[in-house]
């Protein structure tokens, strides 16, 4: 059976979070009653003209620099012509042959190795509105249209076909999201549509130098959907080829419920967008000095931050990668270590219990009720011996659920650790007396029996006994008897 190689390239749309739209003063705020964030310009009324929002250009340059692109000295806008009711002018102002930026890259980690994924180009364009249907588009007796999103600035980031698996594609998109978020030009919220991704996928026999016929996959609304859709599509293409069939060049849509991709339109049905230079806007001549000024204000980006964490906090590479995956996570980490210098302990809690609870509640860290101060206060309680590591897990769950301070939880629930030797020794005596058979086993050399005895002491103290004291006292008593 032929071994196939997967080729993936991504086209990513990112909404820039400027205050006003790309070509008019209307607000870009998400939500709002339908058709309230509009003006004659973004509604495309007769006679209106676009004027480029300079902030959009600045943000786009900022993102492009963070992705290691070359910024064009001369760029222009073009019209992309197609009819759709959510597009008020029935053309989209975009960039065609002279995009803002080219030749960038970002690095992803693949099996512990760094892999560079090329970025072909980045261009600016305006977003379209939204159609709203009763039920589905097929069954709804009407379409309603909301133009609030019309004219929100977008950048489209087109990658090289450098990814070789759905996992790499996901890693690329996650890294892209992290970098853009770090630059502060977008929220990159997939669920709100401020980060959208289409994929070009093909397969070829391993060793072949020519690309196979590609399909374009749309409608993938999460990282998970991206990975699933690509995995499905790769399998589908290989199956077609193995049955002696041919891949049809077409656009396919991901059906999240069925877990399959479905044909949307063929190459023959593809739009002829009739691009031509936008005569209502003047070409952009981009000042080099301005570009350098923007470059100078770029923040520390994920890779730099990761390396700093390894060097400065002595964290393992894995920890550093996970902690810097989002700006919010890394910021949280740094707030913690400013209050509590044991970076590895902070990292363990963030990557362990905190991440587990966030995932379980499908939350990101910005909505977490536990503040960095509270997390570090809890770590300090552990260091002081007020609570044990085991109790801390219980305390943390309560903190996560309620946002209360750890001291308060410990007080309210009576979770203060028992460090009184006499009190623990008494419990130890009781446990030993009540488990003569186990003691015997232990003395015959069964090490596991010791663990059982520790568990019994902890149980009797409802987990509050200091584990080190329990260990020491148990051993002393066993060996003296």
């Amino acid at each position, binding site marked *: 059976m032929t071994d196939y190689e997967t080729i993936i390239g991504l086209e990513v749309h990112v909404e820039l979070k400027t205050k006003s739209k790309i070509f008019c003063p209307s607000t870009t705020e998400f939500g709002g009653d339908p058709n309230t964030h509009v003006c004659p310009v973004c509604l495309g*009324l007769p006679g209106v*003209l676009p004027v480029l929002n300079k902030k959009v250009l600045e943000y786009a340059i900022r993102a492009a620099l963070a992705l290691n692109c070359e910024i064009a000295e001369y760029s222009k806008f073009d*019209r992309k*012509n197609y009819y759709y*009711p959510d597009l008020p002018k029935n053309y989209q102002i975009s960039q065609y042959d002279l995009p803002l930026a080219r030749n960038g890259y970002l690095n992803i980690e693949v099996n512990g190795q760094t892999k560079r994924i090329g970025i072909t180009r980045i261009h600016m364009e305006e977003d379209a509105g939204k159609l709203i249907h009763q039920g589905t588009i097929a069954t709804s007796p009407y379409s309603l249209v909301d133009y609030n999103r019309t004219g929100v600035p977008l950048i489209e980031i087109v990658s090289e076909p450098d990814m070789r698996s759905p996992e790499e594609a996901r890693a690329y998109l996650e890294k892209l999201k992290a970098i853009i978020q770090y630059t502060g030009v977008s929220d990159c919220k997939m669920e709100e549509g401020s980060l959208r991704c289409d994929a070009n996928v093909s397969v070829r026999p391993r060793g072949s130098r020519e690309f196979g016929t590609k399909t374009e996959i749309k409608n993938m609304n999460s990282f998970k959907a991206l990975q699933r859709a690509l995995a499905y599509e790769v399998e589908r293409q290989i199956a077609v080829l193995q049955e002696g069939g041919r891949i049809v060049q077409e656009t396919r849509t991901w059906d999240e419920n069925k877990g399959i991709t479905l044909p949307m339109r063929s190459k023959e049905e593809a739009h002829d967008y009739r691009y031509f230079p936008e005569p209502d806007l003047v070409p952009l001549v981009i000042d080099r000095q301005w570009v350098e000024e923007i470059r100078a204000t770029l923040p520390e980006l994920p890779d730099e931050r990761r390396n700093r964490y390894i060097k400065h906090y002595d964290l393992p590479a894995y920890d550093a990668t996970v902690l810097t995956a989002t700006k919010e996570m890394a910021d949280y980490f740094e707030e913690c270590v400013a209050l509590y210098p044991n970076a590895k302990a902070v990292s363990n809690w963030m990557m362990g219990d905190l991440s587990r609870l966030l995932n379980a509640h499908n939350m990101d860290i910005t909505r977490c009720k536990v503040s960095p101060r509270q997390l570090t206060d809890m770590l300090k309680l552990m260091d002081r011996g007020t609570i044990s590591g085991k109790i801390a897990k219980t305390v943390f769950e309560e903190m996560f659920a309620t946002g209360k301070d750890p001291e308060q939880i410990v007080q309210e629930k009576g979770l203060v650790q028992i460090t009184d030797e006499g009190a623990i020794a008494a419990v130890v005596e009781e446990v030993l007396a009540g488990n003569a058979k186990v003691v015997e086993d232990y003395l015959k050399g069964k090490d596991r029996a010791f663990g059982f005895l520790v568990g019994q002491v902890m149980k009797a103290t409802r987990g509050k006994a200091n584990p080190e004291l329990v260990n020491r006292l148990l051993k002393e008593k066993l060996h003296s008897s």
Partner: protein
Amino acid sequence: MELYYLTAHELHDLLVKKEISAEEICRAVFDRIDAVEDKIKAYVTLTRDRAFARAREIDRKIAAGEEVPPLAGIPVAIKDNMCTRGVRTTCSSKILYNFVPPYNATVVEKLEAAGTVMVGKTNMDEFAMGSSTENSGFFVTANPWDLERVPGGSSGGSAAAVAAGEAITALGSDTGGSIRQPAAFCGVVGLKPTYGAVSRYGLVAFASSLDQIGPFTRDVTDCALMLNAICGHDPLDSTSAPRDIPDFTSCLRDDVKGLKIGVPREYMGEGIDPAVKEIIGQAIELLASLGAEIEETTLPHSRYALPTYYLIAPAEASSNLARYDGVRYGYRAEDARDVVDMFMKTRSQGFGPEVKRRIMLGTYALSAGYYDAYYLKALKVRTLIKQDFDRAFEKFDVLLAPTAPSPAFKRGEKTGDPLQMYMSDICTLAVNLAGIPGISIPAGFVDGLPVGLQLIGRPFGEGTLLRVAYTFEQHTDYHRRRPSL
């Protein structure tokens, strides 16, 4: 002379001397409209009540001793492709028959600031596509000099209104000659400014890289006053030029001594009516006798102006007019099965035949596989045409040519043959492609029909055009003649 036939500067003198009021001027113009509009049909919409309210407002200012600007109280007609807040703006198209803009075009704001009184919105070829105003989706406008003839186009309503005394001045738009050619046909002054001199914000686009708004007036002095009012950078129009504007009245000097005027031979050759040539010849002699140095010159790529124009303008139009789909405003076809059907029915029923022809031409020129051969080639030829002018202006201050190859033609004479109709803009198209200014002034009559003289200037050389035009006017009386209606 009747008030409605005076110029704006004459009326201003009477106003400030308090011999007449703005309300009286307004009444004179509306009485004239009541008397002749049935024959001329210059207006799509009249704004009578607003006009009188506005005129009385100006009168109150004058009575209060305020100094009013030179165009205060002057009745102005606006071509119906410029947006007027609260007043419907149709482009003489069924597809916009009910469109009431929520905003003013920048020129409309500027004219309001200048104190003018809007009389109404004038008829035009649908979406400014045409040369006779016969392509209006509503009705045909007559030439005040001969009601059987067309007023020219596409700004025929504005030209006819000024010529017939139904407005004192007017605004038109010129994409390939749409101000200058009707000005010539109707015996008035019409100026197309340099591309970027006047804001296009609120001008319903036909061909964005060619469209420019300009004035119709009865003489060159009024033309300078109107330019003063409408020129200037507009932050709402990225293509408007960020430059200081001079006081154009300072260019009104009776002096052409030493000015170098070139006469491109391509504009005086085949296809130009001999009677028109004779009138242009007389104008050349007059200007030469006044000290201008006049020489023949050449614009070798002129012959390509028409095909170049008819690729670029329709290409842009095909995209500009895509928004008229019945979704948001304007006409919407009934009984559509689905959204695509609604688009198609709305556009099939809403647009007239010439607009459809140009949308098809433009869509074709931009299509995959044809773009390089048509649209891109046209852009390159456009550059060559512009370079012809650049070269000519190294030597000459002004170029001189007929505005149109013939005087006004008869209604229906060219409607059956689009190419014949397109040829009537043969003398004006290249000026739009080059983005430079051009003016048409009354230069004589053939069988009682006015003939226009076109002067073409360097980019932002409107001042020189006004100077030559003003000098010509001081030594002729064609601009003082009025049609008898």
